[in-house]
């Protein structure tokens, strides 16, 4: 048997045994990588471990990670989601699908300031689900629209997953952020189109509450959306114009969130400390996985596994589209057991060389991976957004899964569209200042 093949099999068995046995994901990566280097190469595993840890963490681009998470934690504790819904609702209630569109738009806007899929889903669910229940909206459609729209938190910048991908794949985080905007709008547009279609086919799914808003009312409620728009402008606008790096924009975002919390009265000593410690726990958890992934990636490189796999795939003479189709099936399968972020870091050392060798840009692949991570958020049995919605609704997980399935399909359609038309992803990064 080919030595690389049996080494891969041994490491793969150990990897899944550790994961299945309940060893933390970051630690599993460390252990498998250390084992691979120690037993299968002459390189000193310990020395590499220390160097990788220092070089990975001592990073200016990575510094934006805790700050974006802190920003999201601060906003999570404000009334911003309620205000977003109130500001958007009068503008969309005339559309077929009515207030469900406010779900999609609210999630998209909240995603543009939070960066987290679960936070987006949980925050909007708290506000909109009781309202939909009161109005007698179809439960499955309401829950499904939240499950789907919540995932926009990963795609619409600033995105935590994009920061991790950018650091590990050595791709500009600013470009990745810009690359996510149009696909994010595309996904939101598909969701809204589907909701409108359901509203046209059966208007009873979103009954009319016979409330009327004059133009003056609508304009009067619009300022509720302004704080969010200003924050988006501050964070994304500064990156797009080249006025600030993503790390600087994240600090500006934290300042903006603090001011917003202070003006709205939601910022207290307790909420500040909760946000700070919440951001610490989340980022450190990711930090362990990031160092583990960097060590794992180095080990894979020393063992020659990605190169061998790339040669094997090249030998299959798959077309680029076939390769993406195969990877999509693989990621959906993995998404049943692992969270999206973990899947990205685990598979990156092997998949990135394959995909770039097939002619795809690393920026495009970053967006592709983010969409796959979004899909993982709503694939059973381990889909984080499904758990969030189960907690918020007290419904059976099978009901939540069935509700989310149409949106899963829509996200796959978005994926197919950006694969056939990669320009949707690459157009905006190419127009950035200094691009």
């Amino acid at each position, binding site marked *: 048997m080919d030595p690389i093949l049996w080494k891969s099999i041994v490491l793969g068995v150990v990897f899944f045994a550790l994961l299945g046995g309940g060893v933390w994901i970051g630690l599993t990566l460390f252990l498998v990588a250390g084992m691979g280097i120690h037993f299968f190469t002459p390189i000193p595993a310990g020395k590499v471990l220390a160097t990788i840890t220092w070089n990975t963490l001592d*990073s200016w681009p*990575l510094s934006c990670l*805790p700050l974006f998470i802190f920003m999201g934690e601060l906003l999570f504790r404000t009334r911003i989601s309620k205000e977003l819904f109130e500001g958007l609702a009068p503008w969309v209630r005339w559309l077929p699908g009515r207030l469900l569109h406010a779900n999609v738009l609210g999630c998209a806007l909240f995603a543009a300031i939070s960066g987290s899929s679960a936070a987006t889903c949980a925050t909007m669910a708290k506000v909109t689900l009781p309202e939909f229940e009161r109005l007698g909206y179809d439960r499955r459609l309401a829950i499904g629209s939240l499950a789907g729209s919540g995932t926009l938190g990963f795609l619409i910048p600033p995105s935590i997953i994009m920061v991790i991908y950018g650091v590990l794949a050595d791709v500009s985080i600013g470009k990745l952020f810009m690359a996510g905007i149009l696909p994010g709008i595309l996904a939101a547009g598909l969701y809204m189109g589907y909701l409108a279609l359901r509203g046209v086919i059966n208007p009873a799914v979103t009954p009319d509450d016979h409330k009327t808003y004059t133009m003056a009312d609508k304009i009067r409620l619009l300022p509720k959306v302004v704080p969010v728009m200003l924050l988006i402008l501050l964070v994304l606008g500064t990156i797009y114009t080249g006025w600030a790096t993503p790390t600087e924009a994240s600090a500006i975002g934290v300042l903006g969130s603090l001011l917003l919390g202070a003006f709205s009265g939601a910022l207290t000593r307790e909420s500040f400390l909760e946000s700070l410690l919440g951001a610490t726990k989340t980022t450190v958890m990711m930090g362990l996985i990031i160092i583990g992934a960097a060590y794992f990636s180095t080990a894979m490189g020393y063992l020659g596994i990605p190169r061998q796999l790339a040669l094997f795939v090249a030998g299959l003479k798959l077309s680029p589209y076939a390769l993406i189709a195969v990877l999509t099936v693989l990621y959906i399968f993995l998404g049943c057991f692992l969270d999206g972020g973990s899947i990205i870091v685990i598979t990156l050392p092997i998949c990135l060389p394959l995909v770039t060798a097939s002619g795809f840009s690393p920026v495009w692949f970053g967006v592709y991976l983010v969409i796959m991570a979004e899909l993982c958020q709503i694939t059973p049995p381990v889909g984080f957004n499904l758990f969030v919605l189960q907690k918020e609704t007290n419904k059976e997980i099978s009901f939540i899964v069935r509700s989310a399935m149409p949106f899963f399909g829509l996200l796959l359609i978005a994926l197919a569209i950006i694969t056939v038309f990669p320009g949707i992803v690459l157009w905006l990064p190419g127009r950035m200042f200094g691009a």
Partner: protein
Amino acid sequence: MRKLFRIIDRAGNVGGMCSAACILLMTALILLETAVRITMGSSIFIAEEYSAYLMANFVMLGMAFTLKQGGHIKVTLLYSRFGERPRHLLRFLACLLGAFMFGLLTWQLFVLTADSWETKQQSMNITKTLIFIPQSGLVAGGLLMTLQFVAEAFREAQALFGAEIEAEPTRVEGSD
């Protein structure tokens, strides 16, 4: 033993507080750099370098605190189907592996830091910072995490053999 566990827990909490402080320092430093650039068209010259040092220290110093809070994620799909005793056994083994891995990492980080100290290695930036200073925080963070893993392994062993669990309750379970 009870006292030792309490000291380890408190040390982990102190690490967590230092880690949280790093976020605030990073924010302040980067905002200062941005403000100086906008208002004076200049730079404080340390924002990039020191934010990166703070980032590295932030992650390592917060490891033990995050472990104790159940913040590190694991796949519980298969593991959650086991009974109470096998789960304690698996958690005990996982903590031993963690203690081993982080013990090794801490030792290697110490060697790296000692080397930077002996060779008086400096940053290549204008500050010429001695690299062993920021690296020391990583050694401390690694040591805290190793000790926390040892403490958790002891707790799991006690739970496994039916002894009373010492020190304050912990949340090493994590989520998936």
